[in-house]
């Protein structure tokens, strides 16, 4: 009898389960702490796209559009931004969203000791709340990047009540104002979000719950989609692309990412920067000429990614078309080596993360370089080690990339300016510094682009980083999913997405 009751209960559960629409999304890894001020993982941002609304959002073409902020005007002197925020928005705990909440959020991002957002908001000097729904951001100087920063974690709005109460532990039970509220989290297993009925744009949301499942193994992730256990899979491996496209049970969409991958040379970070490759740009040029970027894309990534040679992908409006991706030229590479005094070739040690894709990439790079006379020795290191060696200057060349930022500044300034926070190559050129600093304060896009173009003209010869390719975000969807749009930031936005059965 007891058994029967249990079975009935299970059946009842299953029945309600079928009625309520649950969307299941497989992530490549588990998110870190769910506090927008403290978190740092890519997958964490995917969860936020459903959990936490931002002041502004982006379009697939990287235009900045309203989300919680409805209007904003930059003052003529570039020193302040007037902003109007949406009325009638409430946080998941019932707290009203208003201009004061924006001010509290910015203060938290700037002052919480654990905050990873400080550098992103460093140009905001103060916030004046001028009305219930209007405010002014006062800047330390003209900064064209502020609005783009507010289109990501720095612009995510948390309930000030909950943030004040939970303090540094906010991430254990995050309270925001997005389309879904936090349900439960079992580390490394799942994050469950529930539909928030009072969401300002609730009509665009078609799911009762969203479950995020971290499934690191690419084969298992795909198997889950094939068996119908999940509906959306982020970052399909390029090697699975052909198989996935042939399967009628699901669709594959992709967008070129904002980031890049390449080889960072040590040109001035400690003693190692004095090696031949660090001191003679001709050797780095030779290395670049030895690379067949299109072949790398075809061989390692089945043609699914985008070859690249700059901080921005060729599809970006910031790409400098005067320096297109050149074909491979082994003769030129050899000539440059001879000119630099190495007619018999030269050795180069490159450190690389010890995971499959970077190692495959480096093996292809190694054989291409060898044909030009550059004998590459691959030293594979586990990521934490690679990063600390790179930061300490304990490397000659390093295969590493960057996840990318909406504003072009985020892809270049901190790497290429003398005092840049992550200038691991130790590159320093006053002309580049000047151009990149000037680009930061220009509001006009054409004027900004001119500065980036000027910097690129120098960087294309100096080559502290030899760019190789830009990853694409490949998303596989159950064939019943409709209305999904891939974005260059790789986020999964659920507005207007539905599941037909």
């Amino acid at each position: 009898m007891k058994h029967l009751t249990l079975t009935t209960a299970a059946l009842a559960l299953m029945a309600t389960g079928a009625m309520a629409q649950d969307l299941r999304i497989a992530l490549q890894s588990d998110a870190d702490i769910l506090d927008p001020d403290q978190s740092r993982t890519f997958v964490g941002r995917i969860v936020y796209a459903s959990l936490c609304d931002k002041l502004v959002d982006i379009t697939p073409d990287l235009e900045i559009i309203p989300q919680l902020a409805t209007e904003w005007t930059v003052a003529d002197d570039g020193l302040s931004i007037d902003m109007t925020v949406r009325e009638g928005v409430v946080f998941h705990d019932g707290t009203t969203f208003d201009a004061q909440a924006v001010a509290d959020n910015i203060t938290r991002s700037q002052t919480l000791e654990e905050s990873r957002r400080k550098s992103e908001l460093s140009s905001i000097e103060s916030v004046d709340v001028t009305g219930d729904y209007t405010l002014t951001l006062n800047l330390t100087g003209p900064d064209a990047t502020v609005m783009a920063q507010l289109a990501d974690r720095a612009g995510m709005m948390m309930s000030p009540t909950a943030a004040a109460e939970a303090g540094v532990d906010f991430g254990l039970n995050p309270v925001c104002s997005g389309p879904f509220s936090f349900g439960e989290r079992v580390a490394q297993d799942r994050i469950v979000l529930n539909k928030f009925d009072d969401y300002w744009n609730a009509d665009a949301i078609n799911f009762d719950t969203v479950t995020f499942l971290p499934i690191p193994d690419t084969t298992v992730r795909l198997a889950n989609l094939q068996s119908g256990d999940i509906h959306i899979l982020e970052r399909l491996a390029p090697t699975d692309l052909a198989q996935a496209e042939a399967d009628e049970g699901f669709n594959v969409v992709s967008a070129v990412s904002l980031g890049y991958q390449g080889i960072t040379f040590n040109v001035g970070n400690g003693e190692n920067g004095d090696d031949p490759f660090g001191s003679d740009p001709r050797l780095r040029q030779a290395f670049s000429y030895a690379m067949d970027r299109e072949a790398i894309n075809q061989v390692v990534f089945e043609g699914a990614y985008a070859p690249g040679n700059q901080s921005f992908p060729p599809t970006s409006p910031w790409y400098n078309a005067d320096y297109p991706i050149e074909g491979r030229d082994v003769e030129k590479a050899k000539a440059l080596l001879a000119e630099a005094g190495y007619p018999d070739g030269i050795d180069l040690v490159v450190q690389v993360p010890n995971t499959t894709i970077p190692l495959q990439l480096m093996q292809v790079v190694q054989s291409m370089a060898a044909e030009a006379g550059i004998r590459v020795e691959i030293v594979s290191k586990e990521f934490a080690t690679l990063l600390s060696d790179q930061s300490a200057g304990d490397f000659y060349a390093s295969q590493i990339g960057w996840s990318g930022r909406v504003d072009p500044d985020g892809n270049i300034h901190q790497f290429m300016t003398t005092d840049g926070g992550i200038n691991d190559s130790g590159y320093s050129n006053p002309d580049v510094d000047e151009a990149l600093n000037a680009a930061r304060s220009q509001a006009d896009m054409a004027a900004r682009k001119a500065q980036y173009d000027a910097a690129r003209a120098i960087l294309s010869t100096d080559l502290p980083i030899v760019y190789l390719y830009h990853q694409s975000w490949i998303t596989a969807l159950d064939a019943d999913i409709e209305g999904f749009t891939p974005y260059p930031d790789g986020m999964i936005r659920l507005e207007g997405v539905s599941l037909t059965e």
Partner: protein
Amino acid sequence: MLAFFLRRVAVAIPTLLLISVFVFALQKLLPGDPLLVLAGEERDPEVLEFLREKYRLNDPIPVQYLTWVGNALQGDLGTSFRTNQPVTELIAQKLPVTLQLALMSLIFAVLIGIPAGILSAYRKGTITDYVANVVALSGLSIPNFWLGIMLILLVSVKWQLLPASGYVPPGDDFWLSMKTMLMPAFVLGTALAATLMRHTRSAMLGVLTSDYVRTARAKGLSERKVVLKHAFRNALTPIVTLTALLFGELIAGAVLTEQIFTIPGFGKLVVDAVFNRDYAVVQGIVLVTAVGFIVMNLLADMAYFLLNPRLRAA
């Protein structure tokens, strides 16, 4: 028996201390700065310094260790760098998952390994023996990850019989939980079954040729009684020890199995923690695993007393 028990517990304490020193030192020897990853892509120096202070990584290493021991004695195993969750809470969350996996695997291993071992010893030199040996050898040689992925592709993708991966707590939905855990437990169980089969076979071979077995046969007892009651019972002692020692192998195997089937257990926790240099988590898991191992050994020793009347008398 009590004196024996107490002596064993007393010996366990220095063992645990040694293990904790060893693991702590090993972690510190690992190259790489955990906070560089933790500080985010931008690696803000101010945040880095704050985090170093917060997690006391600026203290000399012996001081760091003593702080950890002091807190551990009070039941505080620290907090995870990565998720800010207390380590004790993480372990309490993950331990039941891995125990379920280990228990189900052990059932598979015992159900397959022991009968196969008895049978192949009894039919030594026949085709049954050879087949059982070949199967056992395959069980040992086929890597877990390969078998796991093949099973997922066949059972979940092709036949759509069982969920491909994940975990459901038995409290939420008992049958779904069993179904989800079936494949991982089978994969982990087969490797152990092979070891168990080989050892059962050799233990049984030794016993089956002994005098009392001949006597039992001479008394006219049925073959069934001779093999299962007289021979097997005496062969059981080494098998019990082995099963207890297999616990270590189970936890090691669980690391891989949990990765493949995305089971949020101990194994997955420890792998992620090592990669993220989440010192407190690694340290906590190793401690708990070591305690588990010692307890299992203790239980095995206790079981001897129950199985072997001669020890009870002594």
